């Protein structure tokens, strides 16, 4: 496929093996699949390592095609200045994080960055509603109504009402005004600042044993 000339050198392979969670076979397969996306003249070894593949081409891979988060995934892993294309090493990074052997820690870190649509380092209400829309799809019947979405995410307004400190905030929740009015944030937002930060996210994820097994893309 990529031609026999496009084999990776031994040192490079060893380095990739050290720096990623992938096995030799997986790296070679990744390289082959990556080369298939390149035009014929760029398929040589040196060229393929320098080449950048645009999102449209990456997203045509069957493994990513149907994924509702495909654009986010590419954006998070892209190191190009304009963040609109992936190099081979970015591609390897992507596969490494989504591989079987990657630790839950690194998986949840990248999951957080994928879900953080505006790249501001926290999951706020806007991020969460976009996330839910991705999950339920854009269809008429599956999309949540505004009220449902509000119930799902709503928390910021109550938290902003001025529950004094974190301690009293907690009490205000459990015995307070509207105890069951906000789901995601109530479950995940520990410091009650109205957004979910990375450690809060990882805390929630750590309680879900299925996360690591489902956060996986295999070529």
């Amino acid at each position, binding site marked *: 496929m990529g031609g026999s000339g496009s084999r990776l050198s031994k040192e490079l392979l060893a380095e990739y*093996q050290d720096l990623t969670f992938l096995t030799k076979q997986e790296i070679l397969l990744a390289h082959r699949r990556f080369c298939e996306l390149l035009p014929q003249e760029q398929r040589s070894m040196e060229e393929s390592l320098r080449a950048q593949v645009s999102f449209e081409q990456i997203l045509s891979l069957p493994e990513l095609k149907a994924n509702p988060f495909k654009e986010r995934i590419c954006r998070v892993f892209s*190191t190009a200045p304009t963040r609109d294309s992936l190099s081979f*090493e970015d591609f390897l990074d992507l596969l490494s994080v989504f591989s079987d052997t990657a630790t839950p820690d690194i998986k949840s*870190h990248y999951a957080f960055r994928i879900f953080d649509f505006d790249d501001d380092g926290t999951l706020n209400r806007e991020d969460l509603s976009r996330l*839910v829309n991705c999950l339920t799809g854009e269809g008429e019947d599956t*999309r949540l109504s505004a009220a449902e979405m509000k119930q799902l995410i709503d928390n910021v307004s109550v938290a902003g009402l001025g529950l004094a400190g974190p301690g009293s905030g907690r009490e205000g929740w459990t015995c307070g005004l509207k105890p069951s009015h906000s789901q995601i944030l109530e479950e995940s937002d520990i410091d009650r600042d109205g957004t979910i930060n990375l450690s809060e996210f990882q805390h929630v*994820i750590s309680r*879900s044993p299925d996360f690591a097994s*489902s956060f996986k893309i295999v070529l």
Partner: protein
Amino acid sequence: MLSDDYSNEIIIEVEDILPGVQSHPSSNQSVREMAQVNSRVSMVSSLSDVEVVDYQTFSNRNEKRRSQLLQFSTSLNNSMSQTLCSPECLGIDTSHSSHETIQGQKLIASLIPMASRDRIKAIRNQPRSMEEKRKLRKIVDKEKSKQSHHIFEFNCCAQCLNSISRAYQRSHNSLSELLNSISLWQKTLKVIGGKFGTSVLSYFNFLRWLLKFNIFSFIMNFSFIIIPQFTMAEKNTLQFTGWEFLTGGGYFRDTVMYYGFYTNSTIQHGNSRASYNMQLAYIFTISACLITCFFSLLFSMAKYFRNNFINPHIYSRGIAKLIFCWDFTVTHENAVKLKQKNLSTEIRENLSEIRQENVRFTVHQQLTRFFAHMAAWVVSTGGAIACCAAVYYLAEYNSEFLRMHRDPGAVLLLPFVVSCINLVVPRFYSLFRLVERYEMPRREVYVLLIRNIFLKISIIGILCYYWLNIVALSGEECWETLIGQEIYQLLLMDFVFSLADSLLGEFLRRIIGMRLITSLGIQEFDIARNVLELIYAQTLVWIGIFFCPLLPFIQMITLFTMFYAKNISLMNFQPPSKAWRASQMMTFFIFLLFFPSFTGVLCTLAITIWRLKPSDDCGPFRGLPFFIHSIYSWIDTLRTRPSYLWVVWIYQNLIGSVHFFFILTLIV
């Protein structure tokens, strides 16, 4: 903003030292390299800040090194100043760069004293891009080499150890790659996962796991019992008609398939002194198989348990989990759409449940619910007991029935009835949900599982009672072979039924659901019922392994076929609509396989070996009062040889002592 000031400071510092950088070719190069990676400011800046701190901490070292560090940190700082200058990166990103700085400092400081293997692991674990990781490794390696150079030379021993560990690492890697490349059905499993998600995939993984068990048992049995027996097999005089595949009798009675065929003599060829004691080989091979199964079950159970139950689930309602745990393995477009739809339904259900949470049931409603549940439990338990009684009387009557009917197919009556019960009653149980109306789908699944496992295990239990108390004591010629034959029939009939069910029954159900009664819709893949069928068959195999050493091979074939049959019949299903906690259910399944199933098998075989008299004219243990006497006499012969006294010691302290079994029971 505080961080803004901070970065400005750094930039100024860089400009001061900039000329020094230009004179240094290597740092010059790294500047160019770093400049390419200007998208993630926070990361890069954290790296460069680390260098600054390094410089401060190590500044009491000699002058030369200081200047080197200076140059290096300068190059990094320089690159950072470039990145900071790019307009799109200014803003919030810099505000948490200071936060990450501290992490970066700690990271490098912690990486330096690590062993090289741990260091590679730690670097791999960093959520950074390849380029950054490479850089990080280079920095740490440089630090490391400098340090070791200054303190003392690497001694030969350490280097040697290092290279050995490297070589081990490489060989380990290539071994696991080899295993990976031959691992079965990787591609098929990927497709199934893509269409149905992790929950259905867990069923197939469980099947594959059982298959590995059986392949292992078969290899053990084949190499230690069957091949030696082949070398001195006698000519089989029985007629082969073809019915034997179904009944397991006739021709097969005189083959390596059954216990009765094996010799009790010591195999010795020619005049060589090497001899092979068949009795001991038989008992040791089978116990080795079971012990291996025991430990691998125990370990996998512990592994799953640690992963899934150690973190206590404080929050009962996991909407957050529902939302953050999108199944990325699903790649089929329609499956994704379906999954989105299911997820949206589930979120809505959850929300409406939350709204109605405060609605309390009236006393009247609570009473009706209580009685409905009571009635369901009474009916299901009663049903299971009735089935057991029916199987028991049928089995008792069966021997008379067989004496009257000489038809070879008549022996299939009992397995047929048992398989019918296994087919019909679980479906009857699942109808109970119409009466019980559990609010939590998970509780419904667990209740269903408990009822089904109770039914299946009590049927197997009653059959074991029948075999050990009636067949074994009836004085029949070669009762071990008879039991082996019955287990073979049960296993085969079960296989035929599930094959027919998955190829025909599920297809018919789909046609009915799509064409005739459209309100039924397409059914979902019932993971619980299917897994229980696997557990049932595996229990039979474990019991039968003593009476029919070839049983793992037969189970291998059936599992292999079932994999493809289920794979084909999956097209009749749609993915499960509820978010199914696949990994937790897996723990539960393995626990079920361990607790009623495997421990029951151990008890049955222990009773057989310690309490039953082997038949007089067949099998490796003929003529002994109990099976275990073969071990006793072996130990007695060993006692006379001083060089084997350690075996006797082990025997006395393990098998012969009560304390060992007491401790074992405590552990389990």
